[in-house]
């Protein structure tokens, strides 16, 4: 019997679970790593083996290249999948894997480095003949004088964006509408970028008005084949962080789709890209598009592409890393079958400015039925740690048409229950019913503008009947509690007859 090839997954949460599923389906062994607060996390429980790598703070665990490489070597893993976030776009990690004889499931360290710097990536795109958003060519030195930055800002024009060179996930990014706000924006962006990425460098980019964020997923093998996929529409953002993604986009004509896909492939080829990656574009009102940046990793929103194409991107990442040739029919990759929408479900209180609300997920009820994909990283009984992103799950729905997908989304959001913590579910229920969302009339500023207009108004205004219901439920729960009938935590302590006995006692 040959020893089974093992993959170490250098991540946690839903993406670690997602990668393990692909490994399992390919017959590959799975090695998890976990921090102290993740001892009972789903990714640990689903792995064949799991190794502790340190305390909760990411800097002491999931960002520790040395420890992770050490576990990979000791466990006999031959591949390392970084997921997204943490070390996924860290070229030192990719290099350390290579140095230890491990195959990094992703692009080469040099491709990561080139595309990881937003300013360098813009140069690559220009070299590939792809238009870029007007902005600064090079990042500002840490001690660049305000006057120099202000001059550059004037050249680009307001409104503009301050962006971290090493940015991602909306961190280290600030919108500046007038010169007066520039200096403060630079300061907060630098501070946030420094603490989030260990790199405080920032640059400026013109803020395109009424633009949509459209991106092209692609796969590239080690033999030079690059396959771009049908686009994802990611314009529903809060503070530059994607909230809802869908595929295809309502805003793309077929010629634009093809042109954007070709541009994406050209950028990937220019940088000698391998594995899965995404080229992000801004599409303006005239239908012109501009290169924004490249994500040299699997993205959070990859499932919508999988759902509309039927192609498993993570399996392909692994197969490419194992040296296989990409044999996907390019026509199929670019042709959506139906429509898919993803919501990123967070443990945040939408009525408190989306403040994180970590805590114990006491119970979960995840919807099923047709057209639902559940990519979850949390099981009932898990305490969402304070140290990481508070995403609980990705919810992906699909339908024959966008209208069917949206009516399904509403149904599914109504069914979805996360008990014990506040989540963004009420927000999504509100959003799914917004006329602009339903008609597809939105751009990247849509959500922030709308939220600003709402001035913190609750997403669900409780009616008087609701308040009665709440009072009734609270009083009943208190009653059951007083009668020791475990209201709210009804999972009985033993088999059926014991429960039956208790039910009897209640009569």
């Amino acid at each position, binding site marked *: 019997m040959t020893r089974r090839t093992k993959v170490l997954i250098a991540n946690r949460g839903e993406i670690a679970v997602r990668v393990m599923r692909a490994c399992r389906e390919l017959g590959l062994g799975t090695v998890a790593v976990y921090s102290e607060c993740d001892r009972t996390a789903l990714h640990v429980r689903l792995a064949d083996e799991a190794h502790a790598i340190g305390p909760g703070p990411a800097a002491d665990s999931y960002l520790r290249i040395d420890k992770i490489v050490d576990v990979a070597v000791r466990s006999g893993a031959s591949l390392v999948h970084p997921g997204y976030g943490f070390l996924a776009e860290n070229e030192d990690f990719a290099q350390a894997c290579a140095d230890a004889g491990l195959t990094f499931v992703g692009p080469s360290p040099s491709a990561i480095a080139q595309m990881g710097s937003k300013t360098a990536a813009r140069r690559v795109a220009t070299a590939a003949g792809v238009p870029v958003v007007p902005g600064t060519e090079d990042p500002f030195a840490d001690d660049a004088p305000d006057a120099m930055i202000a001059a550059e800002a004037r050249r680009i024009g307001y409104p503009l964006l301050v962006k971290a060179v090493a940015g991602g996930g909306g*961190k280290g990014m600030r919108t500046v509408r007038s010169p007066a706000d520039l200096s403060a924006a630079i300061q*907060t962006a630098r501070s*946030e970028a420094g*603490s*989030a990425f260990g790199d405080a460098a920032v640059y400026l980019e013109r803020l395109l008005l009424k633009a949509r964020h459209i991106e092209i997923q692609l796969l590239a093998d080690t033999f030079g084949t690059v396959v771009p996929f049908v686009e994802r529409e990611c314009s529903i953002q809060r503070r530059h962080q994607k909230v809802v993604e869908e595929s295809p986009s309502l805003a793309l004509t077929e010629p634009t789709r093809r042109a954007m896909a070709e541009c994406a492939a050209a950028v990937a080829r220019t940088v000698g890209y391998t594995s899965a990656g995404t080229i992000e574009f801004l599409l303006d009102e005239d239908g012109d598009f501009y290169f924004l940046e490249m994500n040299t990793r699997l993205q959070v929103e990859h499932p919508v592409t999988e759902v509309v194409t039927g192609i498993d991107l993570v399996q392909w990442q692994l197969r490419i890393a194992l040296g296989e040739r990409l044999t996907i029919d390019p026509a199929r990759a670019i042709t959506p079958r139906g429509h898919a929408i993803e919501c990123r479900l967070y443990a945040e*209180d939408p*009525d*408190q*400015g989306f*403040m*994180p*609300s*970590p805590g114990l997920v*006491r*119970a979960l*009820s995840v919807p099923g039925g047709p057209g639902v994909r559940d990519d979850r990283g949390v099981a009932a009984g898990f305490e969402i740690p*304070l*140290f*990481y*992103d*508070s995403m609980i799950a990705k919810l992906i729905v699909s339908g024959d048409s966008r209208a069917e997908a949206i009516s399904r989304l509403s149904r599914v959001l*109504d069914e979805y*229950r996360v*008990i*014990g913590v*506040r*989540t963004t579910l*009420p927000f999504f*229920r509100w959003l799914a019913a917004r006329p602009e969302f339903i008609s597809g009339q939105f751009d990247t500023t849509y959500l922030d503008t709308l939220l600003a207009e709402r*001035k*913190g108004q609750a997403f*669900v205004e*409780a009616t008087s009947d*609701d*308040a*009665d*219901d*709440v*009072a*009734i*439920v*609270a*009083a*009943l*729960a*208190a*009653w*059951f*509690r*007083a009668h020791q*009938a*475990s*209201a*709210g*935590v*009804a*999972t009985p302590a033993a088999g059926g007859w014991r429960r039956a006995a208790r*039910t009897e006692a*209640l*009569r």
Partner: protein
Amino acid sequence: MKFEVDVAGRQRTVGVDRAAEGGKFRVVVDGQVHELEAQPTALGLSVVFQAGGRSLDAAATERSGGEWLIQLPHLDVAVVVDGQRHARGRQNRAGADGEQRVTAPMPGRVLRVLVKPGDKVEHRQGLLVVEAMKMENELTAPKAGTVTEVAVTEGSSVEAGRLLVVIE
């Protein structure tokens, strides 16, 4: 049994009486009678109202000091049962009168303090910025008023429930 339930600042008096048969209840909310069947589930409570058969799948998570998080299918609401309000009160009880104690909803680090005692603040004006989970979060005033106390300084780490600012 009688309970006083504080829902968003409004007190309701709820009488709960179990009917003869198991699981059937007579619940009186401020004088209005509801005949219903309530059964515990793994999620919380499955409630069916006799009149019309309305079905309500609700959850109740006990915090402490009589505070519960009640989750209806479309709504999350924190309530206090029997008025034994815990020190760790709700931050945002907009519209309520009297002293408002703004507490940290989660552990984090105070990055910036934007007000000082004596400042007049608008409803939803920023009070301080707390970094938590790698994001900067601005805590805002739950009502218009005057800052009477700022209990933290910039750079300090705070636990969940820690008093930050008092507004009157």
